[in-house]
C-alpha cells in the first residue's frame, strides 16, 4: 500500500515515532501476562515496515541533495 507511494509523501515525523512506539510495544507484548505473541508478531511486522519507509525517505532525501549539487555545479 504505502510502500508503493512516492517517498516524498512519507511523513518523517509519523514514521520515526512509529519506529519507537513499535519497539516499545514489542517489549510490552513479551512482558504482559499472559504473553501476547500475536501482539508481538504485529509489532515486529510494523517495526519492519516503518524502518523500510524510513530508509526509503532517507534515500529519497539523499537523491534530492545529489541532484541539487549537480544543478548547482552547472
Amino acid at each position: 500500500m504505502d510502500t508503493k507511494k512516492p517517498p516524498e509523501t512519507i511523513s518523517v515525523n509519523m514514521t520515526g515515532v512509529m519506529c519507537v512506539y513499535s519497539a516499545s510495544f514489542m517489549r510490552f507484548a513479551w512482558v504482559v501476562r499472559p504473553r501476547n505473541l500475536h501482539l508481538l508478531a504485529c509489532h515486529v511486522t510494523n517495526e519492519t515496515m516503518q524502518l523500510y519507509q524510513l530508509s526509503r525517505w532517507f534515500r529519497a532525501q539523499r537523491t534530492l541533495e545529489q541532484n541539487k549539487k549537480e544543478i548547482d555545479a552547472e
Partner: protein
Amino acid sequence: MAAAKLQALWNHPAGPKTIHFWAPTFKWGISIANIADFSKPPEKLSYPQQIAVTATGIIWSRYSTVITPKNWNLFSVNIAMAGTGLYQLSRKLR
C-alpha cells in the same frame, strides 16, 4: 502522605519501573506526530495510515480497561490517537 502516594505510584504493577508504563508513553508520540502533521496539506495524508491509527485507538481504548492491571495511561493515549486520527481523516475527506 505525598511521599507514600509517590511510593505507591512508583511500585504500581503498571508504574514507571515497567514496560506497562513506558509503552503507552511512547505511544503518545504517535498522537503528537499526528498533531504536528495537522499543518501539512491534506493531500499528503495517507488514508490507510490514518484509518489504522483511528481503528487501533478505538480498539486499544477498550483493551486497556479489560486487562489486569487496568492501564489508564494506555486508555488515555488511545483516546487521543482515535481523536487525532479521526480529525486527520476528516481533513482528508473534505
